[in-house]
């Protein structure tokens, strides 16, 4: 079953596909530069305690995103 959830609700080690980024143009641009955009596959590497940043594997690199942004990135996860 496919679940549509924000990045912050993903479990560490889970992989999902980005379906929507609910952020302004500036944030969109900065994310796109790192390859984070609609349709891309991402794997969650880790999450810090208490609303800390989320670390993702995107392409061959890891990207850290603040909790606020991560909450606005919606992914489809097969569970």
């Amino acid at each position, binding site marked *: 079953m496919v679940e549509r959830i924000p990045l912050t609700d993903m479990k560490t080690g889970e992989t999902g596909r980005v379906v929507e980024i609910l952020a302004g143009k500036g944030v969109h641009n900065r994310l796109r530069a790192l390859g984070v955009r609609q349709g891309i596959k991402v794997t969650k590497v880790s999450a810090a305690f208490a609303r800390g940043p989320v670390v993702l594997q995107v392409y061959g690199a890891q*990207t*850290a995103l603040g909790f606020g*942004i991560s909450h606005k990135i919606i992914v489809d996860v097969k569970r």
Partner: protein
Amino acid sequence: MKRILLMGNPNVGKSAVFSRLTGIHVIASNYPGTTVEFTQGTMRVEGEKAILIDVPGTYGLEVTSKAEEIAVKMLEDGDAVINVVDATNLERNLHLTLHLLEKNIPVIIALNIWDDAKHKGITIDVKKTEELLGVPVVPTVAVTGEGIKELVSRIPEAFSPKIAERTEEGRWTEAGRIIDQVQSLQHRHHTALEIIGDASVKPLTGIPIAILAMFAVFKLVRFVGEQLVGNVFEPIFERLWQPLMMQLSSILHPGSFLHSIVIGKLIEGEIDFVQSFGLLTTGLFVPIGMVLPYVFSFYIVLGFLEDFGYLPRLAVLLDNLMHRMGLHGWAIIPMLLGLGCNVPGVMATRILESRRERFIAATIISIGVPCAALQAMIWGLVGKHGGGYVGIIYLSLFIVWVVLGRILDIVLKGQSPELIMEVPPYRLPSLQTISKKLLMRMVAFLKEALPMVLLGVLVVNILYFLKVFDVIANLTSPVITNVFGLPKEAVAAIAVGFFRKDVAVGMLGTLDLTAKQLVVAATVLAMFFPCIATFVVLFKELGVTDMLKSILVMLISSLIVGGLLNAIL
């Protein structure tokens, strides 16, 4: 001369390639009219000299940041591009490459980090990649120098295929299409560096690792610094310089005006490099004999941490704390640089997005982050009374750093932007890159510190001679004695703090203060005002109004903290 541009994503080993290609003579400068820094050097292509420009790392040529804007501008007057590409992350890197190939400039590709790609089970068909992209592709390992010769010899083959312009999405699709044809992946186990890399970003293991790492860094910096002072610099000053200065002293006659400026006071008939306070005695000993060794050891360790890839992980772990101070994790970088010297620390606040963040960061650096010069002097003078006293100074500054950041975050309008940052894998750094960076930093330190220390010592002597300090001391004695519990003569040291904090702490050494008084004085000195070099940079980075605000914050908080320390201790 031909201008060759070195371009690529951040964290692809571009600086290591740059170090390999260029000679010793490398200059860092700001792009005209901007705060974006780049380095350039010279190299030889087919026997002819060419300029190699290390363009700031960019992910694409869409102008979304200052660095990208500069990269696009530099592209206009370059003659060729060496596009450094990370072989372990080819697909994302190709996005920039494909964009470059649309432009009217010859391109050659350095497929860097080739060794790691092999370890990771990534095989790339180089011939096929050349065919598909239409430009030369050379596998390189910049850290060891592998492939660099071939890269240089093939620069003349650089070519501009001028492929049709694509949309951004089109480039991503094309990158994916190319990857499908040239790259194959094999299953393999995680390397040791990858395992440590992941462990140090996950909070459960990362926080203990961070604490251990910071402790080790602190110990290492002190150890290397102490060894250098004790075994190299002190012997040089005591055995070689001292006899020379004693001869000069007898020529100049102790007590004469010239003697008191050049040699300073004799302490029990001898030159005391800390207390004599002449230009050629204390003026040279403080920056070279006491401070330089620690600055040197600090920059070695920092350079290693930077190139190893630890700092982004620290940024992730500290993001939460930094958010409470109106900043995000990445702001830890200017703070760490500030521990070396506040000037590059404040300049590095440029990496932060908003004016508000830059103000908060620059202010708390100037107040709560003691530079290596100041720290070295504190260890030297206060450390004699016991490590606990040094600990109190550090603890006070740390508390001020956090509390002030929190207050500024609450008081200032606006909110802190979010962290968006690449976390590069751990990589063993190239010795060449580290030593080049170290050399540049040491030269910058000496250029910065030596003239200012000498000027500071000169001014102090003249002001003493003119009895100006006596007047100031009497005027300020209510604050100095009542609030801080210091003898009124200490005001001279605090006044010198406007120039150089290391010289100022050195002056405290001439006053015969108790341990408690030293702690109060050193803490107040660290906080109350930026040294003149930092002052100039604050002015440039923040503008007059914000700089004045920042200084007001410093004055008020140093009064409060100095008073509190005096009351508590």
